């Protein structure tokens, strides 16, 4: 156990180091430079550009830039090139905006996928199974932005509720109840959209996992000794089918910072995804690299957690 922890910590540190190098190289070796982003602006005289380059260490060789960047990142002093605000504070602010989307989306995903997946596994090849299978494929295949517009048309013309942004403009003076409902309505569409893909994939996975377990000998035994269907499915089969999903809790973690660029830009939601998008457009390297680094850390921590959870729930596994 300790050996496994130590080994994987070392491995993950090496991976993280390589990720930091690769992302740094990708960003800095791409043609063009942030100092050239606005060449037509008359304020950008050559001296000004030179001063900016010095300020951002862009005149130093790459490996020095790398060291300076990660020194700043780890000491928390890293600032955005766009507005000179500390990057970590900016990310924290946007993170709080994305958090409700993430929580509601994840809850929707996990509460919907299981009943749907289990039912279609039990009624294999029945009409319910066929419909949900086809629907799942449709939801996987539909482009998020197209689906978003269909839902916007539906909701705006049928239900007359506000959908764009995090809250309606000028709502601050309304009563708390109105304000709360306003927030909820704004939250519904983006989080449903964020959850659809997840529901489709996860319910398919639940179904195949259940089908595999239902085919096992011990399920046949349980049925042979005359247990009612519910006991067979939910006590004997489901518990074992759940094993791989426990480990998936670890893999949700990276989604925390991901945020969907497309959905957040359609709904003008000031979250992480839009922040990343704006940073890319403005060539705000510190923000891009910091986001990338945090995501990589979350991916690695997530896989570690999922390995550990696997060990906890399945005593057969010795790592």
């Amino acid at each position: 156990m300790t050996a496994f922890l130590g080994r994987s910590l070392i491995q993950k540190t090496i991976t993280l180091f390589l990720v930091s190098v690769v992302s740094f190289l990708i960003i800095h070796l791409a043609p063009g430079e942030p100092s050239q982003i606005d060449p037509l602006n008359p304020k950008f005289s050559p001296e000004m550009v030179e001063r900016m380059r010095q300020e951002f260490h862009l005149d130093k060789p790459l490996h020095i830039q790398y060291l300076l960047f990660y020194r700043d990142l780890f000491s928390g002093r890293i600032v955005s090139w766009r507005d000179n605000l500390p990057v970590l504070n900016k990310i924290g602010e946007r993170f709080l905006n994305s958090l409700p989307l993430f929580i509601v989306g994840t809850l929707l995903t996990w509460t919907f996928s299981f009943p749907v997946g289990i039912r279609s596994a039990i009624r294999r090849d029945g009409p319910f199974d066929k419909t949900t299978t086809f629907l799942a494929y449709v939801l996987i295949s539909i482009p998020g932005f197209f689906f978003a517009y269909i839902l916007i048309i539906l909701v705006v013309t049928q239900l007359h509720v506000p959908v764009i942004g995090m809250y309606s403009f000028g709502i601050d003076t309304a009563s708390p109840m109105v304000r709360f409902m306003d927030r909820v309505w704004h939250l519904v569409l983006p989080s449903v959209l964020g959850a659809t893909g997840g529901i489709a994939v996860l319910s398919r996975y639940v179904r195949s996992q259940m089908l595999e377990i239902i085919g096992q000998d011990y399920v046949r035994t349980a049925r042979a000794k005359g247990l009612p269907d519910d006991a067979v499915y939910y006590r004997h089969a489901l518990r074992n089918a759940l094993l791989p999903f426990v480990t998936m809790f670890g893999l949700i973690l990276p989604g925390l910072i991901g945020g969907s660029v497309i959905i957040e830009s359609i709904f003008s939601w000031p979250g992480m995804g839009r922040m990343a998008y704006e940073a890319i457009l403005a060539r705000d390297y510190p923000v891009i690299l910091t986001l990338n680094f945090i995501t990589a850390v979350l991916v690695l921590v997530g896989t570690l957690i999922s390995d550990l959870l696997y060990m906890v729930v399945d005593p057969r596994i010795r790592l």
Partner: protein
Amino acid sequence: MTADTRNSALDAATGLPPARTPWEETWRLLRKNRLAFSGLLIFVIFFLVAVAGILLTAGSRPVLDPAQVRLQEKLLPPLSLPNHEVLPPEALPPLGRYLLGTDDLGRDVFARMLQGAWVSLTVGFVAVGIAVIIGIILGGLAGYYGDQELEVGHLLVWTTGVIAAFLLLTNRPAGAAAAAAASAVIWIVMRRERSLYEGPPSRRRWFTRGLVSVDTLIMRAVDVMLCFPSFFLILTVVALLPASLYNIMVVIGLTSWMGTTRFVRAEFLSLREQDFVAAARALGIGDMRIIFRHIMPNAMAPVLVSATLGIATAILTEAGLSFLGFGVPPPHATWGNILSDGKQFIFDAPWLTFAPGIVILIVVLAFNLFGEGLRDIMNPKLRERN
């Protein structure tokens, strides 16, 4: 399954099932899987439409001109007739009607959709082609040569080789020649060392000492790539590079080879130990022939499946990028940018949103259904016996 149906599948004279080649068997099963088969049909239609689209809309005087601006005729609904009085005769749509309406500049949406079909098709196939080639090479290396150690000398040879290539690219031929010579010298010394001295590993010279195994190296590279959020990475690179279709294809390809690598590696690891490979080796057949003639055909099933599903993802990714305004530069139509341009008129001209949206949905759905069907068909465990 009754005894009856089982007997009918057997040949009456011999009592054996009728001989079918694996391809015939796959085809037969595919015909039976209605969803997968319709996916394949849609794919074939899409392919033909895209080829017809590039033929009809390309060139200096295309039959259907996707760039023809008719400001008098903007935002006409689908199937509407052109106004003969205000349009010059050369601007009339050749089909007599605007099949899918016109956009805010009066351009024929049908022609633009045809032009965009080719973009989606090439992005899907080229990007996945790149990913699959990288995946097969790396996965095959990791699976077949996985336990070979990478030696210090190898590292030196490669580093000097890369330096030589870099110097050559930056126009410094003298330095490049020197680095290449150094690389060659190290390689020759290593070869000599190995043939002269066959001792226990502990007594080897430092430059033939093992560093990491090939497998570890490649799988760590996969881990590193999996740490990047894929759409974000693609977006970053595409945004930094100059806008072009080729950049998108290459970037999507270079960021999606990890799955194929893992599949191919896993297949190679299990196939490598099988008797037919041992037999081939015993016959003295070379490594390359074993890999490409004996192992590869048996490892293709998961690759085909993941390639088909990968095409669906690549088409969606390209559409998302065009929607955000990256990728193919503007006058050229793609399904993503038709939809993106149409979003301002979502209530007045919904066909600008629905035409590309539904077409993307159908094409991606076709690839997904076909891929999943293929997976079921090629997996003997899931196959129902009959």
